[in-house]
Protein backbone atom coordinates (compact mmCIF):
# COMPACT_ATOMS: atom_id res chain seq x y z
CA UNK A 1 0.00 0.00 0.00
CA UNK A 2 1.62 3.28 -1.09
CA UNK A 3 -0.91 5.30 0.83
CA UNK A 4 -0.42 8.41 2.86
CA UNK A 5 2.71 7.62 4.82
CA UNK A 6 4.33 10.84 5.99
CA UNK A 7 2.38 13.10 3.64
CA UNK A 8 0.67 15.07 6.39
CA UNK A 9 1.26 15.91 10.02
CA UNK A 10 -0.74 16.98 13.02
CA UNK A 11 0.70 20.31 14.07
CA UNK A 12 -1.73 21.56 16.67
CA UNK A 13 -3.91 19.95 19.32
CA UNK A 14 -5.97 21.07 22.29
CA UNK A 15 -8.51 19.62 24.63
CA UNK A 16 -10.74 21.12 27.29
CA UNK A 17 -11.74 18.92 30.22
CA UNK A 18 -12.19 19.43 33.92
CA UNK A 19 -11.74 17.25 36.99
CA UNK A 20 -15.30 18.26 37.90
CA UNK A 21 -16.49 16.78 34.61
CA UNK A 22 -18.14 20.09 33.78
CA UNK A 23 -17.08 22.95 31.50
CA UNK A 24 -18.31 26.52 31.42
CA UNK A 25 -18.98 26.89 27.70
CA UNK A 26 -20.89 24.78 25.23
CA UNK A 27 -21.80 24.39 21.59
CA UNK A 28 -20.14 26.37 18.80
CA UNK A 29 -18.52 28.83 21.23
CA UNK A 30 -16.73 25.93 22.92
CA UNK A 31 -15.75 24.50 19.54
CA UNK A 32 -14.37 27.89 18.49
CA UNK A 33 -12.42 28.23 21.74
CA UNK A 34 -10.74 24.85 21.38
CA UNK A 35 -10.02 25.46 17.68
CA UNK A 36 -8.31 28.72 18.69
CA UNK A 37 -6.17 26.83 21.21
CA UNK A 38 -5.19 24.20 18.63
CA UNK A 39 -4.31 26.87 16.05
CA UNK A 40 -2.27 28.78 18.64
CA UNK A 41 -0.52 25.52 19.47
CA UNK A 42 0.43 25.16 15.80
CA UNK A 43 1.33 28.81 15.30
CA UNK A 44 -1.41 29.18 12.69
CA UNK A 45 -4.49 31.40 12.43
CA UNK A 46 -8.04 30.88 11.22
CA UNK A 47 -7.05 32.54 7.93
CA UNK A 48 -4.76 29.57 7.23
CA UNK A 49 -7.60 27.02 7.51
CA UNK A 50 -8.94 25.74 4.20
CA UNK A 51 -10.42 22.43 5.33
CA UNK A 52 -12.95 21.60 8.07
CA UNK A 53 -14.18 18.37 9.59
CA UNK A 54 -17.11 18.05 11.97
CA UNK A 55 -19.07 15.00 13.02
CA UNK A 56 -22.44 16.73 12.52
CA UNK A 57 -22.07 19.73 10.22
CA UNK A 58 -18.82 20.96 8.72
CA UNK A 59 -20.86 23.55 6.80
CA UNK A 60 -22.48 24.91 9.93
CA UNK A 61 -19.14 25.09 11.66
CA UNK A 62 -17.43 26.87 8.74
CA UNK A 63 -20.25 29.38 8.53
CA UNK A 64 -20.01 30.10 12.26
CA UNK A 65 -16.26 30.62 11.90
CA UNK A 66 -16.72 32.72 8.74
CA UNK A 67 -14.38 30.64 6.61
CA UNK A 68 -14.72 29.25 3.08
CA UNK A 69 -13.03 25.85 3.04
CA UNK A 70 -12.18 23.88 -0.09
CA UNK A 71 -12.29 20.59 1.79
CA UNK A 72 -15.30 19.64 3.89
CA UNK A 73 -16.12 16.45 5.77
CA UNK A 74 -19.14 15.77 8.01
CA UNK A 75 -18.49 12.07 8.42
CA UNK A 76 -20.03 10.62 11.54
CA UNK A 77 -19.01 7.10 12.54
CA UNK A 78 -19.69 7.71 16.22
CA UNK A 79 -16.67 7.78 18.51
CA UNK A 80 -14.22 6.97 15.73
CA UNK A 81 -15.32 10.01 13.67
CA UNK A 82 -12.14 11.94 14.43
CA UNK A 83 -9.76 9.17 13.39
CA UNK A 84 -11.75 9.01 10.16
CA UNK A 85 -11.49 12.80 9.82
CA UNK A 86 -7.72 12.55 10.26
CA UNK A 87 -7.54 9.85 7.60
CA UNK A 88 -9.64 11.88 5.16
CA UNK A 89 -7.76 15.08 5.95
CA UNK A 90 -4.40 13.42 5.31
CA UNK A 91 -5.71 12.09 1.99
CA UNK A 92 -7.10 15.49 1.00
CA UNK A 93 -3.83 17.23 1.88
CA UNK A 94 -1.82 14.60 0.02
CA UNK A 95 -4.06 15.10 -3.03
CA UNK A 96 -3.67 18.86 -2.90
CA UNK A 97 -7.32 19.64 -2.17
CA UNK A 98 -6.39 21.78 0.80
CA UNK A 99 -3.45 22.57 3.04
CA UNK A 100 -4.65 23.18 6.62
CA UNK A 101 -7.49 21.12 8.06
CA UNK A 102 -9.21 21.51 11.41
CA UNK A 103 -11.38 18.90 13.11
CA UNK A 104 -13.25 19.71 16.29
CA UNK A 105 -15.57 18.17 18.85
CA UNK A 106 -17.38 19.63 21.84
CA UNK A 107 -20.09 18.06 23.95
CA UNK A 108 -21.40 18.94 27.40
CA UNK A 109 -23.78 16.16 28.47
CA UNK A 110 -22.94 16.55 32.13
CA UNK A 111 -23.60 20.26 32.54
CA UNK A 112 -26.60 19.97 30.19
CA UNK A 113 -28.09 17.46 32.61
CA UNK A 114 -27.26 19.70 35.58
CA UNK A 115 -28.99 22.62 33.85
CA UNK A 116 -32.07 20.54 33.07
CA UNK A 117 -31.58 20.85 29.31
CA UNK A 118 -33.46 18.18 27.39
CA UNK A 119 -31.21 15.23 26.61
CA UNK A 120 -30.21 15.23 22.99
CA UNK A 121 -31.49 11.96 21.58
CA UNK A 122 -30.39 10.67 18.22
CA UNK A 123 -33.04 11.03 15.54
CA UNK A 124 -34.26 7.46 15.12
CA UNK A 125 -36.04 8.33 11.87
CA UNK A 126 -38.14 5.83 9.94
CA UNK A 127 -37.18 2.45 8.55
CA UNK A 128 -34.49 2.15 11.17
CA UNK A 129 -33.59 -1.49 11.90
CA UNK A 130 -32.60 -0.54 15.45
CA UNK A 131 -36.17 0.51 16.15
CA UNK A 132 -37.72 -2.51 14.41
CA UNK A 133 -35.52 -5.35 15.61
CA UNK A 134 -33.67 -4.30 18.77
CA UNK A 135 -35.25 -1.50 20.82
CA UNK A 136 -38.50 -3.45 21.37
CA UNK A 137 -36.44 -5.86 23.47
CA UNK A 138 -35.38 -3.12 25.88
CA UNK A 139 -31.81 -2.95 24.60
CA UNK A 140 -29.99 -0.44 26.78
CA UNK A 141 -27.68 1.70 24.69
CA UNK A 142 -24.79 1.93 24.46
CA UNK A 143 -24.06 -0.56 27.24
CA UNK A 144 -25.95 -3.71 26.29
CA UNK A 145 -24.24 -4.48 22.95
CA UNK A 146 -20.82 -4.27 24.61
CA UNK A 147 -22.07 -6.45 27.43
CA UNK A 148 -23.13 -9.06 24.88
CA UNK A 149 -19.65 -8.92 23.33
CA UNK A 150 -18.17 -9.51 26.79
CA UNK A 151 -20.53 -12.42 27.50
CA UNK A 152 -19.58 -14.07 24.23
CA UNK A 153 -15.86 -13.47 24.80
CA UNK A 154 -16.12 -15.07 28.22
CA UNK A 155 -17.99 -18.08 26.84
CA UNK A 156 -15.60 -18.63 23.94
CA UNK A 157 -12.28 -17.87 25.57
CA UNK A 158 -12.78 -18.08 29.32
CA UNK A 159 -12.17 -14.37 29.85
CA UNK A 160 -13.03 -13.35 33.42
CA UNK A 161 -14.60 -10.32 35.07
CA UNK A 162 -11.34 -9.92 37.00
CA UNK A 163 -9.39 -9.62 33.76
CA UNK A 164 -11.79 -6.99 32.42
CA UNK A 165 -11.57 -5.18 35.77
CA UNK A 166 -7.77 -5.10 35.47
CA UNK A 167 -8.14 -2.82 32.45
CA UNK A 168 -10.12 -0.34 34.56
CA UNK A 169 -7.52 -0.61 37.34
CA UNK A 170 -4.55 -0.06 34.99
CA UNK A 171 -6.28 2.85 33.28
CA UNK A 172 -7.10 4.48 36.61
CA UNK A 173 -3.41 4.23 37.54
CA UNK A 174 -2.64 6.39 34.49
CA UNK A 175 -5.36 8.84 35.48
CA UNK A 176 -3.64 9.14 38.85
CA UNK A 177 -0.73 10.76 37.00
CA UNK A 178 -2.94 13.27 35.16
CA UNK A 179 -4.16 16.22 37.19
CA UNK A 180 -6.83 16.96 34.57
CA UNK A 181 -8.48 13.54 34.88
CA UNK A 182 -12.00 13.22 36.23
CA UNK A 183 -11.15 10.36 38.61
CA UNK A 184 -7.63 9.86 39.97
CA UNK A 185 -7.94 7.76 43.10
CA UNK A 186 -6.49 4.26 42.69
CA UNK A 187 -8.99 1.39 42.46
CA UNK A 188 -8.64 -2.37 42.82
CA UNK A 189 -10.15 -5.29 40.97
CA UNK A 190 -12.42 -5.82 43.97
CA UNK A 191 -13.64 -2.22 43.69
CA UNK A 192 -14.66 -2.85 40.10
CA UNK A 193 -16.39 -6.12 40.93
CA UNK A 194 -18.18 -4.49 43.88
CA UNK A 195 -19.50 -1.61 41.78
CA UNK A 196 -23.14 -1.99 40.63
CA UNK A 197 -23.81 -4.47 37.85
CA UNK A 198 -25.20 -2.48 34.93
CA UNK A 199 -25.62 -4.83 32.00
CA UNK A 200 -24.10 -8.17 32.96
CA UNK A 201 -21.20 -8.86 32.94
CA UNK A 202 -20.28 -5.14 32.91
CA UNK A 203 -20.10 -3.32 36.23
CA UNK A 204 -20.32 0.44 36.62
CA UNK A 205 -16.51 0.70 36.75
CA UNK A 206 -16.24 -1.27 33.49
CA UNK A 207 -18.05 1.64 31.84
CA UNK A 208 -16.77 4.98 30.58
CA UNK A 209 -17.62 8.29 32.20
CA UNK A 210 -20.17 10.86 31.18
CA UNK A 211 -18.38 14.23 31.23
CA UNK A 212 -18.19 17.48 29.31
CA UNK A 213 -15.25 17.78 26.97
CA UNK A 214 -13.93 19.44 23.83
CA UNK A 215 -10.96 18.87 21.56
CA UNK A 216 -9.47 19.83 18.22
CA UNK A 217 -6.58 18.98 15.96
CA UNK A 218 -4.93 20.86 13.10
CA UNK A 219 -3.29 18.97 10.25
CA UNK A 220 -1.18 20.24 7.38
CA UNK A 221 1.27 19.01 4.75
CA UNK A 222 4.60 17.60 5.86
CA UNK A 223 6.41 20.44 4.12
CA UNK A 224 4.47 23.16 5.88
CA UNK A 225 4.52 21.28 9.18
CA UNK A 226 8.27 21.65 9.40
CA UNK A 227 7.95 25.47 9.37
CA UNK A 228 5.56 25.62 12.34
CA UNK A 229 5.78 26.05 16.09
CA UNK A 230 5.76 22.47 17.36
CA UNK A 231 7.49 19.27 16.26
CA UNK A 232 5.32 17.65 13.56
CA UNK A 233 3.53 14.43 14.38
CA UNK A 234 3.27 12.57 11.10
CA UNK A 235 0.40 10.42 9.91
CA UNK A 236 2.28 7.24 9.07
CA UNK A 237 -0.74 5.05 8.46
CA UNK A 238 -4.53 5.14 8.51
CA UNK A 239 -7.27 2.59 8.06
CA UNK A 240 -11.01 2.37 8.60
CA UNK A 241 -13.53 -0.44 8.44
CA UNK A 242 -17.12 -1.00 9.55
CA UNK A 243 -19.00 -4.28 9.40
CA UNK A 244 -22.38 -3.47 10.95
CA UNK A 245 -24.39 -0.66 12.42
CA UNK A 246 -26.62 -2.48 14.94
CA UNK A 247 -25.31 -5.21 17.20
CA UNK A 248 -27.50 -8.04 15.91
CA UNK A 249 -25.79 -7.62 12.52
CA UNK A 250 -22.22 -7.86 13.85
CA UNK A 251 -20.75 -10.95 12.18
CA UNK A 252 -18.73 -12.10 15.22
CA UNK A 253 -19.14 -10.39 18.58
CA UNK A 254 -15.58 -11.24 19.61
CA UNK A 255 -13.88 -9.78 16.52
CA UNK A 256 -14.22 -6.16 15.50
CA UNK A 257 -13.52 -4.59 12.10
CA UNK A 258 -10.38 -3.25 13.82
CA UNK A 259 -8.74 -6.40 12.46
CA UNK A 260 -8.97 -4.78 9.03
CA UNK A 261 -8.56 -1.09 9.90
CA UNK A 262 -5.55 -1.95 12.05
CA UNK A 263 -3.87 -4.23 9.52
CA UNK A 264 -4.31 -1.61 6.79
CA UNK A 265 -2.98 1.22 8.94
CA UNK A 266 0.00 -0.81 10.17
CA UNK A 267 0.82 -1.95 6.62
CA UNK A 268 0.70 1.64 5.35
CA UNK A 269 2.98 2.72 8.18
CA UNK A 270 5.27 -0.27 7.69
CA UNK A 271 5.10 -1.23 11.35
CA UNK A 272 4.14 -4.18 13.52
CA UNK A 273 2.59 -4.10 16.99
CA UNK A 274 6.02 -4.45 18.61
CA UNK A 275 6.96 -1.03 17.15
CA UNK A 276 4.15 0.73 19.02
CA UNK A 277 5.23 2.77 22.05
CA UNK A 278 1.72 3.94 23.01
CA UNK A 279 -1.73 2.56 22.29
CA UNK A 280 -4.58 5.01 22.63
CA UNK A 281 -7.39 2.46 22.23
CA UNK A 282 -10.94 3.71 22.67
CA UNK A 283 -12.12 2.38 26.04
CA UNK A 284 -15.85 2.97 26.04
CA UNK A 285 -15.95 -0.16 28.19
CA UNK A 286 -13.24 -2.47 29.45
CA UNK A 287 -14.25 -5.10 26.88
CA UNK A 288 -13.76 -2.54 24.09
CA UNK A 289 -10.11 -2.04 25.02
CA UNK A 290 -9.56 -5.78 25.37
CA UNK A 291 -10.91 -6.39 21.86
CA UNK A 292 -8.57 -3.71 20.46
CA UNK A 293 -5.54 -5.45 21.99
CA UNK A 294 -6.47 -8.65 20.18
CA UNK A 295 -7.69 -7.17 16.92
CA UNK A 296 -4.66 -4.91 16.46
CA UNK A 297 -2.39 -7.91 17.02
CA UNK A 298 -0.86 -7.08 20.40
CA UNK A 299 -1.94 -10.57 21.43
CA UNK A 300 -3.75 -13.47 19.78
CA UNK A 301 -7.55 -13.66 19.56
CA UNK A 302 -8.92 -14.82 22.88
CA UNK A 303 -5.76 -13.98 24.83
CA UNK A 304 -6.66 -10.42 25.77
CA UNK A 305 -7.62 -11.45 29.30
CA UNK A 306 -4.29 -13.08 30.24
CA UNK A 307 -2.47 -10.30 28.33
CA UNK A 308 -3.74 -7.52 30.59
CA UNK A 309 -3.60 -9.52 33.84
CA UNK A 310 -0.12 -8.46 34.96
CA UNK A 311 -0.69 -4.75 34.39
CA UNK A 312 1.10 -4.65 31.03
CA UNK A 313 -0.94 -1.61 30.00
CA UNK A 314 -0.45 0.29 33.30
CA UNK A 315 2.32 2.78 34.15
CA UNK A 316 5.63 0.91 33.94
CA UNK A 317 4.11 -1.84 31.77
CA UNK A 318 5.42 -2.97 28.40
CA UNK A 319 2.45 -1.57 26.44
CA UNK A 320 1.29 1.78 27.82
CA UNK A 321 -2.41 2.13 26.96
CA UNK A 322 -4.59 5.21 27.44
CA UNK A 323 -2.05 7.27 29.32
CA UNK A 324 -4.45 10.19 29.84
CA UNK A 325 -6.70 7.94 31.93
CA UNK A 326 -8.95 7.01 29.03
CA UNK A 327 -12.68 7.17 28.61
CA UNK A 328 -12.84 5.17 31.82
CA UNK A 329 -11.19 7.82 34.05
CA UNK A 330 -10.14 10.93 32.07
CA UNK A 331 -13.14 12.14 30.10
CA UNK A 332 -15.93 10.79 27.91
CA UNK A 333 -18.31 13.37 26.44
CA UNK A 334 -19.96 10.87 24.05
CA UNK A 335 -17.61 10.59 21.08
CA UNK A 336 -14.23 10.24 22.68
CA UNK A 337 -12.05 9.57 19.62
CA UNK A 338 -10.73 13.16 19.49
CA UNK A 339 -9.04 12.76 22.87
CA UNK A 340 -7.13 9.70 21.67
CA UNK A 341 -5.46 11.84 19.01
CA UNK A 342 -4.75 14.75 21.35
CA UNK A 343 -3.03 12.51 23.91
CA UNK A 344 -1.06 10.58 21.26
CA UNK A 345 0.27 13.85 19.83
CA UNK A 346 1.16 15.28 23.25
CA UNK A 347 2.99 12.09 24.23
CA UNK A 348 4.97 12.05 20.97
CA UNK A 349 5.97 15.67 21.62
CA UNK A 350 6.95 14.94 25.21
CA UNK A 351 4.39 17.30 26.77
CA UNK A 352 2.73 14.97 29.27
CA UNK A 353 4.44 15.82 32.53
CA UNK A 354 4.24 13.16 35.20
CA UNK A 355 2.71 10.58 32.89
CA UNK A 356 5.13 11.26 30.02
CA UNK A 357 6.53 8.11 28.39
CA UNK A 358 10.25 7.91 27.75
CA UNK A 359 10.90 9.15 24.19
CA UNK A 360 7.96 7.47 22.44
CA UNK A 361 8.25 7.51 18.66
CA UNK A 362 5.15 5.68 17.44
CA UNK A 363 1.65 6.00 18.86
CA UNK A 364 -1.57 4.42 17.65
CA UNK A 365 -4.94 6.16 18.06
CA UNK A 366 -7.63 3.54 17.52
CA UNK A 367 -11.18 4.83 17.48
CA UNK A 368 -14.30 2.72 17.94
CA UNK A 369 -17.70 4.00 16.87
CA UNK A 370 -21.35 3.18 17.59
CA UNK A 371 -21.53 -0.42 18.91
CA UNK A 372 -18.12 -1.85 17.94
CA UNK A 373 -19.31 -0.90 14.46
CA UNK A 374 -16.73 1.38 12.86
CA UNK A 375 -13.05 1.10 13.73
CA UNK A 376 -10.53 3.63 12.53
CA UNK A 377 -6.81 3.32 13.20
CA UNK A 378 -4.21 6.08 12.97
CA UNK A 379 -0.50 5.40 13.25
CA UNK A 380 1.31 8.57 14.30
CA UNK A 381 5.05 9.11 14.52
CA UNK A 382 7.79 11.60 15.28
CA UNK A 383 10.26 13.08 12.80
CA UNK A 384 12.57 10.10 13.43
CA UNK A 385 9.97 7.67 12.10
CA UNK A 386 9.11 9.47 8.90
Amino acid at each position, binding site marked *: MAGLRGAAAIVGVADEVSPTGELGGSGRALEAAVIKQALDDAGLTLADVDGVCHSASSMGLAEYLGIHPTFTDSTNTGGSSFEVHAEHAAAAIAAGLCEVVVSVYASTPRSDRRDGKPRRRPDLG*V*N*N*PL*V*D*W*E*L*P*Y*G*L*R*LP*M*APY*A*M*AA*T*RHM*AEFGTTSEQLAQIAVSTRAWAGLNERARYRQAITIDDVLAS*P*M*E*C*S*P*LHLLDCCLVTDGAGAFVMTSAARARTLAKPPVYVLGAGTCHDHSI*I*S*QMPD*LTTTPGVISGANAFAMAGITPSDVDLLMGYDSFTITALLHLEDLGFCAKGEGGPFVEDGKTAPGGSLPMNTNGGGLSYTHPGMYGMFLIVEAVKQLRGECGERQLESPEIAVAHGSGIVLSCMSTLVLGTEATR
Partner: protein
Amino acid sequence: MSTKVPADTPLRMEPPISPGAEPFWEATRECRLVLPWCLACERPFFYPREVCPLCLGTAIAWRPATGTGVVYSFTIENRPPPAAFSMGKPYVVALVELDEGVRLMGNIVGCPLEKTEVGMPVSVTWEALSDGRHLPLFEPRREENAL
Protein backbone atom coordinates in the same frame (compact mmCIF):
# COMPACT_ATOMS: atom_id res chain seq x y z
CA MET B 1 -44.39 -23.05 20.39
CA SER B 2 -46.67 -21.56 23.00
CA THR B 3 -48.84 -18.51 22.54
CA LYS B 4 -49.47 -17.53 26.14
CA VAL B 5 -47.70 -14.46 27.43
CA PRO B 6 -45.30 -15.46 30.20
CA ALA B 7 -45.95 -13.67 33.46
CA ASP B 8 -42.44 -12.23 33.58
CA THR B 9 -42.75 -10.49 30.22
CA PRO B 10 -42.18 -6.75 30.45
CA LEU B 11 -44.28 -4.09 28.78
CA ARG B 12 -42.52 -2.69 25.79
CA MET B 13 -42.21 -0.34 22.88
CA GLU B 14 -43.94 -1.87 19.88
CA PRO B 15 -41.99 -2.19 16.63
CA PRO B 16 -43.08 -0.38 13.46
CA ILE B 17 -43.49 -2.25 10.16
CA SER B 18 -40.76 -1.16 7.80
CA PRO B 19 -40.82 -1.79 4.03
CA GLY B 20 -39.82 -5.36 3.22
CA ALA B 21 -40.94 -6.74 6.57
CA GLU B 22 -44.71 -6.87 5.98
CA PRO B 23 -44.84 -10.66 5.41
CA PHE B 24 -42.83 -11.25 8.56
CA TRP B 25 -45.27 -9.33 10.72
CA GLU B 26 -48.32 -10.70 8.91
CA ALA B 27 -47.23 -14.25 9.81
CA THR B 28 -46.80 -13.27 13.44
CA ARG B 29 -50.56 -12.64 13.60
CA GLU B 30 -50.82 -16.44 13.57
CA CYS B 31 -47.70 -16.87 15.72
CA ARG B 32 -45.75 -18.19 12.77
CA LEU B 33 -42.06 -17.36 12.41
CA VAL B 34 -41.08 -16.93 8.77
CA LEU B 35 -37.77 -15.90 7.24
CA PRO B 36 -36.95 -14.17 3.97
CA TRP B 37 -34.95 -16.36 1.58
CA CYS B 38 -33.16 -15.03 -1.47
CA LEU B 39 -34.17 -17.19 -4.42
CA ALA B 40 -30.93 -16.45 -6.24
CA CYS B 41 -28.64 -17.33 -3.31
CA GLU B 42 -30.97 -19.92 -1.78
CA ARG B 43 -30.07 -18.48 1.62
CA PRO B 44 -32.10 -16.89 4.39
CA PHE B 45 -31.25 -13.49 5.79
CA PHE B 46 -32.31 -11.33 8.68
CA TYR B 47 -33.45 -8.61 9.32
CA PRO B 48 -36.05 -8.53 6.54
CA ARG B 49 -35.38 -6.01 3.77
CA GLU B 50 -36.42 -5.41 0.19
CA VAL B 51 -33.21 -6.79 -1.31
CA CYS B 52 -30.93 -9.68 -0.47
CA PRO B 53 -27.91 -8.41 1.48
CA LEU B 54 -25.77 -11.09 -0.15
CA CYS B 55 -26.48 -10.43 -3.84
CA LEU B 56 -28.96 -7.51 -4.04
CA GLY B 57 -31.51 -9.90 -5.54
CA THR B 58 -35.13 -8.86 -5.17
CA ALA B 59 -36.76 -12.27 -5.64
CA ILE B 60 -37.52 -13.16 -2.05
CA ALA B 61 -39.57 -16.07 -0.71
CA TRP B 62 -40.93 -16.31 2.81
CA ARG B 63 -40.42 -19.72 4.35
CA PRO B 64 -41.35 -21.08 7.76
CA ALA B 65 -38.53 -21.23 10.28
CA THR B 66 -38.11 -24.10 12.72
CA GLY B 67 -38.32 -21.54 15.51
CA THR B 68 -35.49 -23.23 17.35
CA GLY B 69 -31.94 -22.15 17.90
CA VAL B 70 -29.32 -21.42 20.54
CA VAL B 71 -28.36 -18.39 22.57
CA TYR B 72 -25.38 -16.76 20.82
CA SER B 73 -24.91 -14.15 23.55
CA PHE B 74 -26.94 -12.19 26.07
CA THR B 75 -26.91 -9.60 28.81
CA ILE B 76 -28.99 -9.24 31.93
CA GLU B 77 -30.22 -5.66 31.98
CA ASN B 78 -30.25 -4.68 35.61
CA ARG B 79 -31.33 -1.08 35.12
CA PRO B 80 -33.98 -1.05 32.39
CA PRO B 81 -34.39 2.01 30.18
CA PRO B 82 -37.71 3.49 31.31
CA ALA B 83 -39.00 4.25 27.82
CA ALA B 84 -38.86 0.65 26.67
CA PHE B 85 -39.79 -1.36 29.72
CA SER B 86 -42.10 0.00 32.34
CA MET B 87 -41.99 -2.92 34.75
CA GLY B 88 -38.58 -1.80 35.88
CA LYS B 89 -37.20 -5.20 36.75
CA PRO B 90 -34.18 -6.98 35.30
CA TYR B 91 -34.61 -9.00 32.12
CA VAL B 92 -32.47 -10.78 29.54
CA VAL B 93 -31.75 -9.46 26.07
CA ALA B 94 -30.20 -12.13 23.88
CA LEU B 95 -28.98 -12.75 20.38
CA VAL B 96 -30.33 -16.08 19.18
CA GLU B 97 -28.87 -18.06 16.30
CA LEU B 98 -31.68 -19.94 14.59
CA ASP B 99 -31.16 -23.38 13.08
CA GLU B 100 -31.36 -21.68 9.66
CA GLY B 101 -28.18 -19.76 10.50
CA VAL B 102 -29.60 -16.26 10.93
CA ARG B 103 -29.28 -14.30 14.14
CA LEU B 104 -31.99 -12.21 15.78
CA MET B 105 -32.52 -10.42 19.03
CA GLY B 106 -35.11 -11.41 21.60
CA ASN B 107 -35.82 -11.55 25.30
CA ILE B 108 -35.37 -14.87 27.05
CA VAL B 109 -38.46 -15.60 29.12
CA GLY B 110 -39.62 -18.55 31.19
CA CYS B 111 -36.13 -19.00 32.61
CA PRO B 112 -34.49 -17.70 35.79
CA LEU B 113 -32.13 -14.87 34.78
CA GLU B 114 -29.07 -16.58 36.22
CA LYS B 115 -29.79 -19.81 34.33
CA THR B 116 -29.38 -18.15 30.95
CA GLU B 117 -26.28 -19.42 29.15
CA VAL B 118 -24.47 -19.04 25.86
CA GLY B 119 -25.30 -22.11 23.77
CA MET B 120 -28.57 -22.74 25.58
CA PRO B 121 -31.17 -24.30 23.24
CA VAL B 122 -34.23 -22.08 22.88
CA SER B 123 -37.45 -22.00 20.94
CA VAL B 124 -39.63 -19.13 19.90
CA THR B 125 -42.58 -17.98 21.96
CA TRP B 126 -44.88 -15.06 21.30
CA GLU B 127 -46.06 -11.93 22.99
CA ALA B 128 -49.21 -10.24 21.71
CA LEU B 129 -48.81 -6.68 20.42
CA SER B 130 -51.67 -4.20 20.51
CA ASP B 131 -52.46 -4.44 16.77
CA GLY B 132 -52.85 -8.21 16.50
CA ARG B 133 -49.24 -8.88 15.59
CA HIS B 134 -46.99 -10.87 17.91
CA LEU B 135 -43.41 -10.24 18.93
CA PRO B 136 -41.06 -13.22 18.86
CA LEU B 137 -39.34 -13.99 22.17
CA PHE B 138 -37.45 -17.08 23.21
CA GLU B 139 -37.73 -19.59 26.01
CA PRO B 140 -35.60 -22.58 26.98
CA ARG B 141 -36.35 -25.53 24.74
CA ARG B 142 -38.43 -28.03 26.61
CA GLU B 143 -37.79 -31.22 24.61
CA GLU B 144 -34.03 -31.02 24.48
CA ASN B 145 -33.74 -34.38 22.74
CA ALA B 146 -35.87 -33.05 19.89
CA LEU B 147 -32.58 -31.72 18.49
